């Protein structure tokens, strides 16, 4: 199927469609998404809504924002939405209290909602040398190569 994305119309295979296990707060009608990775933009990925082309989120592993969660297994490599700066000079920050955990086997992801007391880290972008990708996620990633 072809999907309208922030990168234009893209061909998306069935295996590249992710469903959200519980609706995202604020976006309760959106169920299907595609994860897009641009080769030159690692460790960032784009979570693009299939149901609403105007909705896409920039994601990155929580570890790149120094975030750790008491009740989420670090091995699952939780991702976070990136809050993009609106003024020059502002750093990238994470929407840290709502990490996303992807289950590549099921093709589903869940947004956990975390109390401030259940997390550590300041949520400011501080990239690690190692590019972390959740297990199995690459097999369902739509990869784009810059020209």
């Amino acid at each position, binding site marked *: 199927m072809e999907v309208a994305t922030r990168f234009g119309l893209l061909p998306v295979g069935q295996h590249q469609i992710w469903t959200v296990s519980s609706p995202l*707060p604020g976006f309760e009608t959106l169920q299907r998404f595609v994860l897009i990775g641009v080769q030159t933009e690692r460790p960032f990925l784009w979570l693009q809504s299939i149901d609403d082309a105007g909705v896409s989120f920039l994601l990155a592993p929580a570890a790149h924002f120094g975030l750790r969660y008491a009740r989420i297994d670090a091995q699952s490599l939780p991702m976070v939405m990136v809050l993009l700066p609106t003024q020059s000079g502002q750093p990238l920050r994470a929407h840290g209290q709502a990490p996303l955990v992807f289950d590549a086997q099921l093709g589903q992801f869940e*947004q956990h909602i975390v109390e401030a007391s259940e997390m550590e880290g300041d949520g400011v972008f501080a990239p690690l040398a190692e590019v972390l990708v959740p297990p199995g996620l690459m097999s369902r990633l739509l990869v784009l190569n*810059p020209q």
Partner: protein
Amino acid sequence: MLILTRRPGEAIRIGDNIRLVVLQSAPGKVRLGIEGPLDLRILREELYTQISQGNQAAVAPQGLSLAQWVSGSVDAPVDAPVDAPVDLPPHGESS
């Protein structure tokens, strides 16, 4: 809205598997216990609202490139479209 009156120790059933118990009541405050499936999301409404607002703030606007956001130069004028032009892989291909 359905309105029910309960006393401490009394409960309400919601559907087949959710039980809401009034544990304690005091002026201006009530303490509730909730029994339900482990995968049932139960949140204080103010936290849900906070997360909802965060999600909406995280929607990536069109018109700026990731490089501009990362470098912090988001005020720079740009010519749309500025997201990286791409070569598409064959249909359904993943790396």
